[in-house]
């Protein structure tokens, strides 16, 4: 029962171009979304987040877009740099619900930036 889906296991983008990573979710109770970046042999590190009351959040080269009606979010990286090569995890959380359910992660997308 995948509540957070990242349907592209990998994505290859040329350096300097835009990288677009996609994520879909099924649980309409999710109201807070995050992207984490993971290098090999390291833990995930927080990248950017967005609350369901917004449709866009920007932080430097990273922008996350949220389409609630489509239950879809995307991460845009522009321009892409070699250091962006990593696995990107989409995660979701229920902020207003009672009890702690932690983060629900997607399976990740391996982004490869080609020189």
């Amino acid at each position, binding site marked *: 029962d*995948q509540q957070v889906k990242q349907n592209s296991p990998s994505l290859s983008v040329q350096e300097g171009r835009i990288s677009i990573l996609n994520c879909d979710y099924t649980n309409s109770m999710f109201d807070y979304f995050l992207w*984490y970046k993971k290098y090999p042999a390291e833990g995930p590190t*927080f990248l950017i*987040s967005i609350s369901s009351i917004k449709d866009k959040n920007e932080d430097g080269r990273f922008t996350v877009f949220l389409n609630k009606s489509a239950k879809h979010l995307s991460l845009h990286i522009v321009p892409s740099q070699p250091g962006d090569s990593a696995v990107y995890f989409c995660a979701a959380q229920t*902020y207003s619900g009672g009890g*702690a359910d932690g983060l629900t*992660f997607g399976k990740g997308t391996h982004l490869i930036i080609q020189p």
Partner: protein
Amino acid sequence: DTAVSQTPKYLVTQMGNDKSIKCEQNLGHDTMYWYKQDSKKFLKIMFSYNNKELIINETVPNRFSPKSPDKAHLNLHINSLELGDSAVYFCASSFGLAHSTDTQYFGPGTRLTVL
């Protein structure tokens, strides 16, 4: 000056053994978590622990038990290890309550292999 640390990084053991993984955070956070990343690469929440309140994911077998000697530590004990327990286990921590939107910081992971 590692924020969230785990030991050991690698753990290889036989079926039926009992083992522990240690986690420490020096961020002054109130909540700690354990996640499991299985062979299919899904990261799934196992436990969250805040101020002596333990929230357990109902799918986690009771062979797994978290133990928190103090706020900075949350160790994971696993009894009667099974082959299916082989995975990478990540510890994480956050400042606020588990269902808040405070960023979770992850440790580097412990790769457990059960033979």
